[in-house]
């Protein structure tokens, strides 16, 4: 149920390798858990993300949650459509609701992320 081509953090972010760039978002598991997302705060273009450190915030009606960088690097694109319509995170977490695109400073970090099977096992019984 989690896309095979993505890599995952235990904090529920996904990373998608696109040539020399990496696109980042959060998983359907996280979106369902949060439910009713009303606010997304993203870094600016040019910001430097550090591996597994917070880079943004997602707020739902009931809860607030930090976003953790699945990879270090410079932000080259942010999804302003998501900032304007945060609810698309609940409906389309892997496509329309991507968050940022980075140019990795240490591409090897991607090896530390989970593949779809490992992530599925990680969320396991917690499945909403």
């Amino acid at each position, binding site marked *: 149920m989690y896309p095979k081509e993505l890599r995952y953090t235990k904090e529920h972010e996904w990373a998608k390798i696109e040539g020399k760039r990496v696109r980042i978002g959060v998983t359907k598991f996280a979106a369902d858990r949060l*439910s*009713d997302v*009303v*606010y997304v*705060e993203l870094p600016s273009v040019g910001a430097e993300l550090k591996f597994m450190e917070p880079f943004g*915030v997602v*707020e739902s*009606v*009931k809860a*607030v949650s930090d976003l953790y960088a699945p990879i270090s690097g410079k932000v080259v694109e942010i999804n302003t459509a998501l900032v304007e319509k*945060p*609810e698309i995170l*609940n409906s389309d977490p892997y496509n329309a609701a991507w968050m940022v695109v980075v140019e990795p400073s240490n591409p090897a970090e991607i090896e530390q992320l989970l593949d779809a099977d490992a992530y599925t096992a990680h969320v396991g019984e917690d499945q*909403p």
Partner: protein
Amino acid sequence: MDETLKRTPLYRAHVAAGARMVPFGGWDMPVQYVGIIEEHRAVRTRAGLFDVCHMGEVDVVGPGAIPFVQGLVTNDVAKLAVAQAMYTPMCTPEGGVIDDLLVYRMNETDLMLVVNAANTVEDLGWIRDHVRADVRVTDRSAEIALLALQGPRAPEILQRLTGAPLGEIRYYWFRPNVQVAGKTVMVSRTGYTGEDGFELYAAAEDAMHLWEAILDAGSRDGVMPAGLGARDTLRLEAGLLLHGNDMDKTISPLEAGIAWTVKLQKGEFVGAGALRRQKTDGLVRRLVGFTLEGRAIARHGFPIQRDGAAVGQVTSGSFGPTVEKSIGLGFVPPVPGTVTKLPFYSRDRHVTG
């Protein structure tokens, strides 16, 4: 928390509907079924059905019941007509709010109090500590179920299930012994959403039948079950306070902005002296509404700052799905400033200008 959570008579219906359950005031309650925003909008535009069985019901009966309760609460219970309901705080001698409750006048002498789930035990203790010989206090919470049908379509949906002329029940009045879907219930035109609607007091064993009958009768109108999440965003938009969040035993009803529930002229009652003093001396803090410019939410406990210094605290904050803004309530010192006039949302017939 190792205390076992209590389940309402509707627990199975919630699980079957796929509700997300959370602990609330000692109960295992549905926070949402399909989503808070969708349920919120259903209540504002159509109708939503809430399980509020966790609320406590207390009978206060006997020849002394009305003067007894009059001495415990801040609002003027003597003004209640038979079949009328009233909202009132119940205070400590220092004027802090022990709980906020509904008082129903059942007949010439007897009252029923409806109290918050989390406070039921404490309220009962307080009431029994003050009880007098001509009054009998009975906790009926376990045997009484409470369902709230709220929203603009609520009257026509409920009317399909009863021959009683519901239109005759005015806001904050009720009718006992109404046949609804074949069960005997007390129909009260009250609620906690800012919408028109009813609260139905029924026998616990009839709760499931009524729940299903109402959802069935309202399916063509798009009625849906609504959870505590939507209940909270609805009440916040309507400027209604939540005890435990917006007020507690350290906060007076005057500070909480519900001075209209404090009748200092009615005679003595617990807290009257402290509240009179507070009124004379002036308030040091006041609950106000605020709207944020962005969509981030200021949540319960967040500091309110003025020129960089903390001056107060947020007591409730959420995204308001109808007003489509980040809204909240919080305490600030009584200084001039821009506050949002409450409520954030009001149904059409209350809108002026």
